[in-house]
C-alpha cells in the first residue's frame, strides 16, 4: 500500500475513462463515465481512510523528474485530501444528473467531465509549482466546451467570458511563479512554502496570485463571469463549477498566498477584507432581486465565498478552519441547490422563478430536499454551512470587529434571499399549469440528492471527521504566518476578575460550541 501510486492512478483513471467514452456510443459512455467516477470515489475514500491524521504533513507523495524543468511531484496534505474527496464525491452525482438531460453528443460530454475530474484532482495533488499551474489552467478547456456546447441560449458569450476572464487572471500568476522559482531555485511547493521571499517583492507576487485566485474564487468585483457561466452551463456543469472550481481559489490562498507571502498577506489584508465585505452585502442584495433561480444561487455563491476569504485571512485557527469548512460545505450545498434547480428545469425548461410556485403540493419529496438545502445554505445549526460560517465569523471577530459585523449581516441577508426563493417556489399555489402538473422526484433524482443531504448533515453534526485531517496543516500554516499577523482592533480588556479571563476568548476551541452559535445567528 505504501508504494502504490494512488494519486497517479486517481489522475490516470478518468483519462482512460474519457478515452473509452469517446470511442463508444451514448448509452455505453454514460455507464463508463459513471463507473469510472465511482471507481475514483472509492479510491478517494480509501485514501481518506488510510490518511494518517497527525502523521507527516505530506502523504502519498510521488516524485518523478519527468519534465526537466519541473517534475511529476504529487502529494497531499489534509486540506488537499478533503478537496479531492469532495471532487470525487460530486463527480458521480454530476454524471447521474446528466443522465437524461444531456441528449446530444453524450460521449463527448462524458469525456469532457472525466478530463475535468483529472485536472481538478491534479490541482489539489500537485506538489510542483508548474504542474499545479498546468492543471489549474488546463481546466479551462473542458469547461469552455461544456458551457459552449451543452449550455443554454446565451452559452457562447458565457463560454468566452469564462475562458478569457479566468485566463487573464491566471497569466500574471505564471510570471510570479517564474520569478519565485528563479529566486528560490526550486519548483517544489513544500519547499517554496518555507521560503522567505524578500518583503518588497512579496506584495507584487501576492497581487499576481491574488489576481488569479480572486477571479477563480470569485471575489467582487471580478465575479461577473460567474452568474453568466452558471446560468448558461448545464446542471452538472454548474455543480462542478460551484462545487470544485470555485474552491481552487480558496485552496490557492491557503496553499500559496498565505504561507508563501505572509508579510504581504498581512499588509494587503485590507484588500481582501474590503472586497469581501462589499461582496457579502452587495451580492446578497443582488441575489434578493433575481428572477432566475440559477443566477440567485450563483450570487449567493459569491457571498459565501466571501466568508471563505474573510475566514482564511483572519490569521487565526478559527478563521482558517472555518473558511476551509465553508469551502467544503458550500461545495455540497450549492451543488445540491443547482441540482434542485436542474430537477425542475428538466421538467419545465425554464429557470424563471415566476413560472413555478406551490411545488410542495405536487412535489413533496422535492420540497423537502429543497427546504433542507435552503436551510443549509442559510446556515441553520446542524448543517455544514453553520459550522464553517460560525467559525469564520469568530475568527473574523478576533481579527477585525467591523469585518465581523458586516459579514454577519450577510447571514441575515442570506436567510432573506433563500427563504424568499423557497417561498416563491414551494409555497402558495402553482402559477402555471405546467408547474402544478410536475411529477415528484424519481428514483434517480432521489439518489442524487440523498447522499448530498446526508453529507451535509454529517458535516453539520460531527464536523470533526472533516476537521481532523486538516488540523495539523492549519497548525503549520498558523506557525508560518504568525509573524505577520496584523494588529487586531478586537482588544478584550480584563474586566472584573470574576468574569472570564482575557485569554478565554482566543483559546476557546471552535469545534462546535453550539449554544453560543445560536446566539450569533438570531
Amino acid at each position, binding site marked *: 500500500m505504501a508504494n502504490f501510486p494512488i494519486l497517479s492512478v486517481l489522475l490516470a483513471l478518468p483519462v482512460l475513462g474519457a478515452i473509452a467514452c469517446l470511442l463508444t456510443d451514448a448509452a455505453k459512455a454514460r455507464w463508463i463515465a459513471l463507473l469510472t467516477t465511482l471507481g475514483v470515489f472509492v479510491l478517494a475514500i480509501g485514501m481518506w481512510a488510510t490518511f494518517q491524521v497527525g502523521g507527516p504533513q505530506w502523504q502519498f507523495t510521488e516524485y518523478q523528474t519527468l519534465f526537466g*524543468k519541473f517534475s511529476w511531484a504529487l502529494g497531499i496534505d489534509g486540506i488537499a485530501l478533503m478537496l479531492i474527496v469532495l471532487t470525487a464525491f460530486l463527480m458521480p452525482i454530476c454524471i447521474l444528473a446528466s443522465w437524461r438531460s444531456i441528449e446530444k453528443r453524450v460521449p463527448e460530454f462524458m469525456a469532457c467531465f472525466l478530463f475535468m475530474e483529472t485536472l481538478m484532482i491534479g490541482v489539489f495533488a500537485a506538489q510542483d509549482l508548474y504542474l499545479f499551474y498546468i492543471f489549474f489552467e488546463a481546466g479551462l478547456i473542458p469547461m*469552455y466546451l461544456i458551457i459552449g456546447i451543452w449550455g443554454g441560449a446565451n452559452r457562447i458569450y458565457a463560454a468566452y467570458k469564462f475562458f478569457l476572464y479566468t*485566463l487573464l487572471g491566471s497569466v500574471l500568476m505564471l510570471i510570479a511563479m517564474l520569478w519565485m522559482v528563479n529566486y528560490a531555485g526550486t519548483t517544489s511547493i513544500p519547499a517554496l512554502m518555507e521560503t522567505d521571499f524578500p518583503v518588497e517583492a512579496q506584495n507584487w507576487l501576492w497581487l499576481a496570485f491574488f489576481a488569479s485566485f480572486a477571479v477563480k474564487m470569485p471575489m467582487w468585483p471580478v465575479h461577473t463571469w460567474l452568474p453568466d457561466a452558471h446560468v448558461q452551463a448545464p446542471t452538472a456543469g454548474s455543480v462542478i463549477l460551484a462545487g470544485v472550481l470555485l474552491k481552487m481559489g480558496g485552496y490557492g490562498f491557503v496553499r500559496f498566498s498565505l504561507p508563501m507571502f505572509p508579510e504581504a498577506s498581512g499588509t494587503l489584508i485590507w484588500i481582501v477584507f474590503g472586497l469581501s465585505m462589499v461582496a457579502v452585502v452587495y451580492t446578497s442584495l443582488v441575489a434578493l432581486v433575481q428572477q432566475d433561480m440559477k443566477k440567485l444561487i450563483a450570487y449567493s455563491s459569491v457571498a459565501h465565498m466571501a466568508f471563505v476569504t474573510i475566514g482564511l485571512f483572519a490569521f487565526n485557527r478559527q478563521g482558517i478552519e472555518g473558511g476551509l469548512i465553508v469551502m467544503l460545505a458550500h461545495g455540497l450545498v450549492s451543488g445540491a441547490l443547482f441540482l434542485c434547480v436542474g430537477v425542475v428545469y428538466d421538467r419545465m425548461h425554464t429557470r424563471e422563478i415566476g413560472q413555478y410556485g406551490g411545488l410542495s403540493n405536487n412535489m413533496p419529496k422535492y420540497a423537502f430536499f429543497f427546504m433542507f438545502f435552503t436551510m443549509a445554505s442559510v446556515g441553520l445549526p446542524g448543517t455544514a454551512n453553520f459550522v464553517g460560517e460560525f467559525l469564520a465569523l469568530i475568527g473574523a471577530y478576533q481579527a477585525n470587529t467591523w469585518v465581523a459585523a458586516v459579514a454577519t449581516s450577510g447571514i441575515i441577508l442570506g436567510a432573506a434571499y433563500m427563504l424568499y426563493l423557497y417561498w416563491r417556489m414551494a409555497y402558495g399555489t402553482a402559477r402555471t399549469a405546467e408547474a402544478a402538473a410536475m411529477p415528484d422526484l424519481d428514483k434517480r433524482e432521489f439518489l442524487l440528492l440523498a447522499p448530498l443531504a446526508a453529507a451535509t448533515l454529517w458535516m453539520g453534526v460531527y464536523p470533526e471527521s472533516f476537521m481532523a485531517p486538516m488540523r495539523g496543516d492549519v497548525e503549520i500554516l498558523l506557525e508560518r504566518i504568525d509573524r505577520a499577523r496584523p494588529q487586531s482592533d478586537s482588544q478584550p480588556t480584563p474586566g472584573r476578575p470574576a468574569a472570564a479571563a482575557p485569554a478565554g476568548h482566543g483559546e476557546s476551541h471552535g469545534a462546535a460550541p453550539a449554544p453560543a452559535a445560536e446566539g450569533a445567528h438570531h
Partner: protein
Amino acid sequence: MQDFILILPELILTVGGLVLMLIAAWGGDKSGPLLTWLGALLLVAAAVFVPGVLPGSATGMAFGGLFAGDSFAAFAKLVIYAGAAVAMLMAMSWFGRDRDYRAEYPVLILFSAIGMGMMVSANDLLTLYVGLELQSLAAYVLAAFQRSDTRSAEAGLKYFVLGALASGILLYGISLLYGFTGTTLFEGVAAKLADGVATGELFGLVFVLAGLAFKIGAVPFHMWTPDVYEGAPSPVTAFFASAPKVAAMALLVRVSVEAMGPATEQWRQIVIFAALASIVLGGVAAIGQRSIKRLLAYSSINNVGFALVGLAASGVAGVAAVLTYMAVYLVMTLGTFMVVLRMRDAEGRPVETIASLAGLSQTRPMLAFAMAIFMFSLAGIPGLFGFWPKFLVFDAAVQAQLTWLAVVAIAMSVISAFYYLMIVKKMYFDTPAPAYAPTREPVGSALLVISALIVSPLGYLAIKPLGEAATTAAQALF
C-alpha cells in the same frame, strides 16, 4: 577536406537537387510524386550528415570562418529539414487533384532548404546574404506556383517586390557595417563593436535588423505576410509559415548574439519593440479575419513576437527558448495547415473561409479534434504542448530581469487566445455548414496524427531531450 565534411548536408542537397531537376526536365510532371519522395529522402540523408548529429562527427568552422557547422546550426537544420520534408509531402496530394502538380515543386523546396541551411550556418555577413537570397528566390517562385491563378501570381509579385526591398535594406546595413568595421566576419564585427558603438555602426545594425525583421514577418515589416499567405497555394503557405520562419529566426539570433553581442543594449530595444508590436498587432488584427489563411498569417506574426521576447532576453536561456519555440511552432503550424489543406467543398475546390469550419465537430469529428488541439496549443493554453515554448520564453525574460516585458507579453497573449477560441467555437458550438469533401490521403493523415500527438500533452515527455538539445545549441553561440 574538413571543410567539405562540414558542408556535407548542403552538398548532398545541391547535387541531389540538380539531379532531381534533370529528372524533372526529362520525366515531365508525371515524375512529380517520385521526385517528392526522393526529395524527402534527400532531406533525411542530409539531416543524418549534419555536423554533430552522428556521434563523433566533426563540428567547427569551415572556409576560414565563413560557415559554422556548430550545434546551433545543427539544431536549426534538423528542424528546417523536417519542416521542408513535411511541406513537400503535404503538397503532393493537394495539388494532385487538379493535375496542377509539377515536378519543380520538390526541387524548389530543396533549393530553398539549401538556402535555409546556409542562413543558419552563416558566420559572415556575405554568407548570410547568399543563403537568404537562395532561400528567397526559391520562395518567390513557389508563391506564384499556380500559374493559372491570379491570386497566386499576385502573391508571388508582392513577395518579390517587398522581398527585394528588404534585401536592399539588409545589404545597405551590411555595407554600413562593413564600412565601419572593415570586416564581414561576425567575430570581427563583434570585436569592433566591443569598443563602443559608433553612429555608423549603429545605423548598420538597425538596417540589418530591419531587413531580417522583414524575413521573419515582425511588425512593422509584416505587411506582406497576410497577402502572400492568402494568395499563395495553401501548401506553399504552410511551407512559408514553417521552415523559412525558423531559418530566419535562427539567423536573426545568430547575427544578434554573435555579430552584435557587444551592442546588446542597443538592439534589445529594437527587438522588444518589434516583439510587443507583433504580439499586439498579430492578436488584434486577426480577430476580424474571414479567411483562415489570413488568420494564420496574423497568428504567425503573433508567434514571432513571442519568440522575439526570448531573443530580447538573450543569454543561453533566451536563445534556447527561441529555438524550442520555433521547433514547436513548426509542428503546430504545419499541423494546422494540414487541416486547412483538407478544407474542400463538395466539388473538391479548396475553401478558405472560417465560416465553412462551422460545426466541423459533427461532420468530421476527428479533424475538428485535431484542429482544436492545434488552436488551443497555438493559444498557449497549458496542458497542450504549445504552452511550453511560451513558458520558456517568459522564463528567459524573467531570468534576464525583463519581468515587465514578460508581464506585458503574457497579458497580450489573452487577446490572441480569443481568436483561437473563435475557431474552436465555430467548430464545436455552431450548427454545421456543408460538410467538406471526404479525403483519402494516407500520408497526410499520418502526418496529421503525428503532429497532433506531438502537440498533445504527450509532448511534455519530450521536454527533457528537447531542452537539452536546445541548450547545447544555444551554448554554441556563447
